[in-house]
């Protein structure tokens, strides 16, 4: 069943046309990966889905509802969470305050909080610390934790492994696998080795449009296609 359907999405930033008609479907459950070179339009796609940049024309349907043109806050309330490339944490707020802000009613569901602490033990350790004092990996954990502190149907995650140590990347992969058991993740990633082990379905964006989509297993087996679309050598 399709959870998110993007059709002919075009987004201009200033005078530049960044997306030139992106179309893809994200099935419900698991991890769907958007791959592509730097500047291909991956981040713009996520931000346009989230309403942070207004796409025009084209449409975005989430659970069958047309969400194109909705305000970002309304899109978030429908059950879509966003983990931006810069993590978007509030540095002057404590870990606890960052998380409580993301709760719907200003209080924690203790079961979910326990699950988050199991996934990211560092957050429990630094619970009362201001977020600016966390390491890069801990900030990324906080950003992801904020996205799952409430039940969400879809989580948009933009390049979560960028600049992180290999051990943190591995832990993040484990966390995504577990999160994907209860939600759908739309992951933008340049780290192909990270992405290939996580996802079932994928698409490649280039020059503001989807140039390939299919299963990750097929794409991972086709080194020529990887080289052609991502510039990866065999």
């Amino acid at each position, binding site marked *: 069943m399709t959870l998110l359907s993007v059709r002919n999405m075009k987004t201009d930033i200033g005078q530049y046309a960044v997306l030139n008609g992106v179309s893809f479907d994200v099935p419900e459950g698991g991890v769907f990966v958007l791959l592509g070179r730097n500047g291909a339009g991956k981040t713009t796609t996520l931000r346009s889905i989230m309403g*942070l940049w207004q796409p025009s024309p084209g449409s975005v349907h989430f659970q069958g509802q047309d969400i194109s043109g909705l305000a970002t806050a309304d899109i978030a309330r429908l059950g879509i969470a966003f983990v931006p490339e810069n993590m978007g944490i*509030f*540095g002057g707020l404590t870990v606890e305050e960052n998380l409580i802000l993301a709760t719907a009613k200003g209080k924690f569901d203790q079961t979910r909080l326990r699950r988050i602490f199991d996934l990211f033990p560092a957050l429990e350790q630094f619970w009362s610390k201001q977020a600016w004092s966390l390491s890069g990996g801990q900030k990324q954990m906080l950003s992801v934790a904020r996205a799952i502190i409430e039940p969400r149907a879809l989580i948009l995650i933009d390049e979560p492994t960028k600049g992180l140590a290999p051990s943190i990347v591995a832990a993040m992969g484990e966390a995504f696998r577990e999160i994907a058991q209860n939600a759908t993740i739309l992951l933008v990633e340049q780290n192909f080795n990270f992405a290939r082990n996580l996802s079932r379905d994928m698409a490649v964006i280039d020059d503001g449009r989807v140039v390939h989509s299919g299963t990750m297993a097929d794409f991972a087996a086709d080194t020529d296609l990887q080289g052609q679309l991502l510039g990866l050598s065999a």
Partner: protein
Amino acid sequence: MDKLSDTLGRFGGVYLLPVALGAIAFVLIGAPSSWVTLTVAGLAMGMMLFLMASGLSLVFGLMDVLNFGHSAFVSFGAFVAASVLAGLSGWLDSSSALLASAALALALLAAIAFGLAVGLFFETVIIRPVYQDHLRQILITMGALIVSEQVILAVWGGTPITVHRPSFLEGAWIIGDVSIEIYRLFAFTLGACVFVGLMILLNRTRIGLLIRAGVENREMVEALGFKINRLFIGVFMLGSALAALGGAMWAGYETLITPALGGEMMIVVFIVVIIGGLGSIEGTLLGAIIVGLTANYVGYLTPKLALASNMILMMAILMWRPSGLKPAVK
């Protein structure tokens, strides 16, 4: 240098600045009684500046809006309070402290209410069309300040207005050689109460959490499902009301006000916000106290430098800390 910074940080960091300023002034002034009088005057002035500037700092930090019209709220607050006090002069002149207190409270409440209303008008009609366009913000809010001055001129006239004060706030307490004006103590106490109230609002409530988060990253607040525009209106109105309250207190402090008050206060209010660091209430308080103390100490020691002192102070602090003393984390 890092060791010195760490050591200073352990003992209070930038919060030591007003203390250091006071200590230096104590040595230069020589006479302890004059120093105490000037220090109380500086703290009272600082608290009134804090009232005027705190809203601007939040609006600047949260909304990224350069509102040069902010001091119009100060003017309106001053004139509305002066009018209410003039209208209730019978209460002020009566021997009943209760009636005089009621007149003062009504004047301050009227200023706050007017500030809220004008703030709502400003945000929805003048500011909203120019979000994210600093040049247009400067032009349109400067224009709004000029128009506001003309409105005040039309309503209240160009003649300076004398502001009545309740008799219980007149005079001074004399302790030895030291003279402490009662109104200054009142201004200091009111400012301190507002500061505590704002700190509780910002640190102990969900709205405050949202404001602090919004100052850092508006986009992410929206992505968490909150309508930031509603927060903008609320913060803008709160800031306008505080400025109007500051203007009302300033009117009682100066006892003579003119329509040019807003323009005169604009520069000093911006200096306070820039010194303190954008978006930070603690920084604004710190900046306001430093500016208040400096103005009084320099005015006593070298009166010819009084006008330039705040500019020199701002330049020195910005060279040391380009983001101000205590900016909100961005």
